[in-house]
């Protein structure tokens, strides 16, 4: 009974889980304009998941898998690509917006998986991590919504995500974790355990080596929604945070009736929710307009979209970040990759691939 009364009191007084608060972007997250200063490697429509494969840099854009510097797509798949992973120069695996997983290159080329164990259909692959040529870890953002419906999933306050291990050869799947709030990034911690970024809970967790043990939070209380997690230098990691948190969105998330009305009656572009980019429409809620003074966009404005790439050390402590603030255009950083002294970033909101010093 006590938790019930506590929750009720928290809700009435705006405390605990009902606190409409967002952590400050300070310390390691101190804003800068490094993403805005980065070199544009290529422009593309909503570029996403970067991978290194056969000496080139690949990215996804709609149904295409493209190689940087080439006009023609490397592969055009039957559905938009939600995520991509490579094992060396051999296997290339894509997660599609229809939920399925498709091997695009390698010994199992053409193999497609559409169901998990017990016949449950795959719904929403958000991140892949190939442990070897035949074994993949898959983050499924939600069992109900597709990858493109991430805003809807957030507004529904779902925690229907899971992490699976799948044998690409046999199709045998094992669930490693469930009831996750939109897992969107996967990486190994170097000690055989799996790190998962959990977007709606603004944190990174470490899955236990043994089943039945609760996952441990290793990085929490982030001021933006964490997405893909990739290894960086010196045992560290790069974390892409694709949209900012704001007090307004936190308030909407706590107002169930208002939120339901909003979902029912408004177009998605006009929802009060985070976005990958601003559409520059006056109808947009609190994207820049309220804080434009004398024709100048205020960089510190609480915007719907933001660009943020965060470097974490081996202990998952934030070290430094690269930002594109409210007055920038390189928002919606969904994927990062560091290779040979260059950091590449896919700005899905800014429609470009960026290259910069790490």
């Amino acid at each position, binding site marked *: 009974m006590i938790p019930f009364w506590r929750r009720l009191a928290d809700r009435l007084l*705006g405390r605990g889980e009902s*606190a409409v608060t*967002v*952590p400050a972007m*300070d310390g390691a997250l*101190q804003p800068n304009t490094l993403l805005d200063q980065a070199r544009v490697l290529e422009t593309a429509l909503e570029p996403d998941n970067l991978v290194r494969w056969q000496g080139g840099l690949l990215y996804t854009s709609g149904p295409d898998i493209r190689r940087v510097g080439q006009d023609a797509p490397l592969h055009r798949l039957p559905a938009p690509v939600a995520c991509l992973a490579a094992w060396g120069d051999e296997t290339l695996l894509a997660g599609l917006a229809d939920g399925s997983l498709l091997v695009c290159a390698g010994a199992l080329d053409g193999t497609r998986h559409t169901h998990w164990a017990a016949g449950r259909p795959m719904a929403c692959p958000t991140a892949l991590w190939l442990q070897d040529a035949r074994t993949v870890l898959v983050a499924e953002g939600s069992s109900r919504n597709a990858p493109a419906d991430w805003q809807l999933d957030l507004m529904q306050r779902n925690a229907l995500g899971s992490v699976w291990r799948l044998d690409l050869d046999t199709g045998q799947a094992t669930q490693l974790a469930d009831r996750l709030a939109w897992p969107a990034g996967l990486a190994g911690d170097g000690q055989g355990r799996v790190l998962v970024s959990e977007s709606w809970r603004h944190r990174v967790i470490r899955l236990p080596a043994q089943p039945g043990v609760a996952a441990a939070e290793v990085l929490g*209380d982030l001021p933006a929604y964490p997405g893909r997690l990739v290894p960086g230098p010196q045992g560290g990691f790069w974390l892409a945070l694709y949209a900012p948190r704001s007090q307004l969105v936190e308030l909407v998330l706590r107002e169930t009736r208002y939120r339901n009305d909003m979902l029912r009656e408004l177009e998605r572009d006009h929802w009060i929710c985070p976005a990958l980019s601003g559409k520059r429409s006056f109808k947009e809620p609190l994207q820049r307009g309220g804080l434009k003074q004398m024709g100048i966009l205020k960089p510190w404005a609480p915007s719907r979209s933001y660009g943020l790439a965060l470097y974490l050390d081996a202990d998952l402590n934030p070290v430094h970040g690269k930002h594109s603030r409210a007055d920038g255009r390189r928002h919606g950083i969904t994927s990062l990759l560091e290779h040979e002294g260059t950091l590449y970033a896919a700005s899905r909101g800014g429609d470009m691939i960026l290259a910069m010093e790490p």
Partner: protein
Amino acid sequence: MDTILSLERVSKSYRGVYAVKDIDFDLRRGEVHALLGENGAGKSTLTKIIAGIIAPSSGRIVLEGREVTFDEPSEALAHGVAMVFQETSLVPTLTVAQNLYLGNEKLFNRLRGLYISAQTFLQSLNFGVDPAHLVSSLGAAQKQLVEIARAVHHKARVLVFDEPTASLTPEEKRYFFSLVERLRKQGVSIIFISHALEEALQIADRITILRDGEHVLTESAAALDRDRIIAAMVGRTLSNELYGHASAGRSTRARGARVLSVQNLSMGSMVKNNSFSIYAGQITGMFGLVGSGRTETAKIIAGALKRDFLHGGEIRLMGKPIRYRIPKQAIRDGIVYVTEDRKIEGFFETMSIAENLYVGQMAAHRAAQRVNMAQMQALAKDWRARLNIRAIGNDARVIELSGGNQQKVVIAKSLLQRPRLVIFDEPTRGVDVGAIAEIHQLINELADSGLAVLVISSYLPEIFTLSDRVLVSREGRVVEEFTRENATEERIMYAAVH
């Protein structure tokens, strides 16, 4: 100028230990005479002898050519000698006007008349304080103004100011200096104790320096400079250990884990949607003007004040939300707050060092404890040695210590709780240069040992000396963050004001 007051071979000893020894001092009519020295140098003791608060053990006091002895402050006041204390001695439950006229009451007092004359008087001094307000409702700076006004009101011919500007804003300091100038022109002689050497050099005609209870020099202010004063005060060249120089070669400490995250904290009109983080192994400096909500924020974190009841924001300690009703809970969680107002909030002034420290230790325990005298003495001995607290013994009353040693007692009380986050609020206010260096060294050692440290200061050189990162607070919230490398005086002040 003729001499109005002179002290001849004045000494004061406590149980054989000299607080001041064979001091010769003279004050001329219409002169501002600065009295400088480290904490424990004997400045306060000397001025208390002049004001009749303590009696000298030996020596003579000559006022306007006649030898005098004051058994109590009222006698000194009757002879035209008044003292404004470093920490205010006002009665908090009385109004400003009642405090001004305290001791001068008539048989029947007309309250309205009292307020009107107090209002006129305060306006003549350019002090914006409402005479009808209770003193308990005033801030530290306003209390100091009332204290000064009270001394002026008594039409004293000799005025002793003990650290009068420590809690004043720059604007209020300007008023104070113009008041001193006006009093000087009226022929009032002023003894001025300050740790701000620039102030002494600015307004004093002559400067006397004491060290370890003995007279070192008396010279015209025009003949002295900052370095010479410091060398005379401490007997060694300290300026390089102080602001700016010592820290110049130090690199920024690496940021550890985020220990504290303050999120959208609000408390009335003083703290408005305030958000910032504090990291382990670093000193975070927080600069802001008086009234920028820094102290209130720190007190909310430490459980001494409460945030807004509804939607007051969140504070997370190592990721877990915290909300304290009383400071004891914060102490148990490893958060300690070293207050800016040590006399009121920092210690029990009539208790000994040992008792104060022991009380501090007991405060963190859940259940009642039996007092263990041996443990109390061992604790005091240990912390006196660690922080170099100079006192006659463990049983010396804290009120008898100098400002710097009092501050060390307050810090020791906090550190013996084995904290993980230490908040220093104006750690060197009213502290002499020697003790400043020691306190700064201590704060650096705390950060080096991995603790998270927040230093709130209104003094920019202190912020520069200590901080690995600088937060600037304005109108109740942190508005800007600077790294050690990109912080400049101009940028910080701009952020604090605009």
